[in-house]
């Protein structure tokens, strides 16, 4: 409640409590989320679009689109650590944020970062830190800001890929680019599918008889090294030991 009040104090609000109507896929008997039906192959990505250097004010920036998922990232730095503390290598700070209007299947996001967004920020730092040569920039901080303008699945892996491109665009020295992807385990038939959409992610995480979940992997293709694995939902042991 206290957090809500701080959020409201600096912003305009409606005079009454309002409710967002649910997405039409929640209508009883709706066929909008049908796990059995998928219009692309199980190992097929959605269409990609990537562009760097779109924010002139930032030291580096990138934009990534995976079908309806739209992510923008800006890098500021390396710049001085504000509190003048000494450190031998640079500190990477990530700030992951969904735009308030980013998702259609849930209520509006808050203006301030919620716990899920804070977790994603932390996961981004973990995925990207080991790809950068941070020793080259002592006493400095690299700020990485990500806004997910629309989320249709794969927000975290998109953010990691996008941020890595933006870091390269900013000219920060690195060992390799990090490319991230997510896979989903379909609870209906136990099939593993690449690049699930938002509707699929929600259904997979609910799980079923055959498990169900989503795994995000950060990978450096040139070095053939994995920087991070993050799994949610439940995936049975035999699926892991493929």
């Amino acid at each position, binding site marked *: 409640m206290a957090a809500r009040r701080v959020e409201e104090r600096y912003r305009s609000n*409606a005079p009454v409590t309002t*409710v967002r109507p649910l997405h039409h896929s*929640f209508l009883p008997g709706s066929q909008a989320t049908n796990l059995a039906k998928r219009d692309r192959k199980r190992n097929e990505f959605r269409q990609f679009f990537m562009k760097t250097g779109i924010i002139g004010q930032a030291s580096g920036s990138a934009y990534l689109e995976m079908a309806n998922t739209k992510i923008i990232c800006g890098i500021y730095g390396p710049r001085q650590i504000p509190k003048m503390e000494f450190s031998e290598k640079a500190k990477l700070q990530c*700030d992951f944020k969904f735009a*308030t209007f980013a*998702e259609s299947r849930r209520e509006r996001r808050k203006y301030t970062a919620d716990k899920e967004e804070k977790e994603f920020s932390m996961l981004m730092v973990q995925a990207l830190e080991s790809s950068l040569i941070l020793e080259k920039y002592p006493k400095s901080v690299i700020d990485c800001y990500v806004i997910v*303008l629309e*989320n249709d699945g794969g927000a975290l892996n998109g953010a990691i890929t996008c941020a890595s491109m933006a870091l390269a665009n900013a000219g920060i020295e690195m060992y390799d680019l990090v490319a991230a992807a997510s896979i989903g385990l379909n609870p209906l038939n136990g099939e593993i599918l690449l690049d699930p959409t938002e509707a699929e992610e929600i259904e997979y995480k609910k799980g079923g008889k055959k498990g169900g979940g989503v795994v995000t992997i950060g990978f450096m293709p040139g070095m053939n090294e994995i920087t991070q694995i993050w799994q949610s939902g439940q995936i049975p042991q035999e699926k892991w030991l493929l």
Partner: protein
Amino acid sequence: MESFRKIYSSEFHKKFLAHNVRPDGRSLDDARNTKISVNSFGSSNGSAFVRIGNTHGSQKLGGGGGDGTSVTCAIVAEVGPPTDATPNGQIIVNVEMTPICSSRFRTGKPTEEAQALGHWLNELVRSPHHLSLEDMKVKMTRHEAVEDDEEEDSLPGMVWYLYADVYCINHDGSIGDAALIALFSAIQNVRLPQLVVTKENQMIAMPIDASSGRINILHHLVPTTFAIIDEQVLVDPSAEEEELSSGLLTIVTRSDGSLVTIRKSGGTSLDDEKLKQCMKTAAERCKTVEKEIKSQR
């Protein structure tokens, strides 16, 4: 050259302004191009992306600016009961100047600039002279016909509350202009869905079709910002020019040619003649930008 520009910013610009030209090649009364694209975000009820300057989208390696201002505005419609002050619902505008758009901003509470801009946009959008909110009653039906006749009329009269969030993506001057253009383009493209109420009293928005409601815009508002640098007036300043200026002047005109609001900040004065010239420029720009907004419907 780049370092001279950064260290002696004022000297650098004055050398150009003495010849009535600006570092990016524009003359003093030349506004940047405006490009609008709408409904890019399917998760919202209506959205717009506005770019002022660099509309051909050329790339530039980071730092220094001069890359054009970009702003996005998306509207999410929520349902609530009407109040005495808002019998037809309301549009609620918030401006987010996130640290992504300029090194001047940090995470945390919104800056005064963002709050002031948000308040200004709210006042413009709530004025009954520009927008008509009469079509904002919610259309609701029951999902399955209820057998009880008593419950038939139990659906309460609700109205729409539209949350319009303006996200600043790149701050390269005249951010208020871009924000207001984005806001009106987004409002123009809002589609309000039909609602269906289930047995569990959940409201479900149906997909958009021909019967979905729109908001009636009576007049489009087009703002033009001017920067005052040493008695010279620059139309549509960039971030660098805004920083050097001793005052900013924003004139909002309406599509029918009338004046909506003038906002001038800073301590320098501006003589009659120049102000009239500015109003003329603003009225001219209004025509071109309005055409661009209307073409995006």
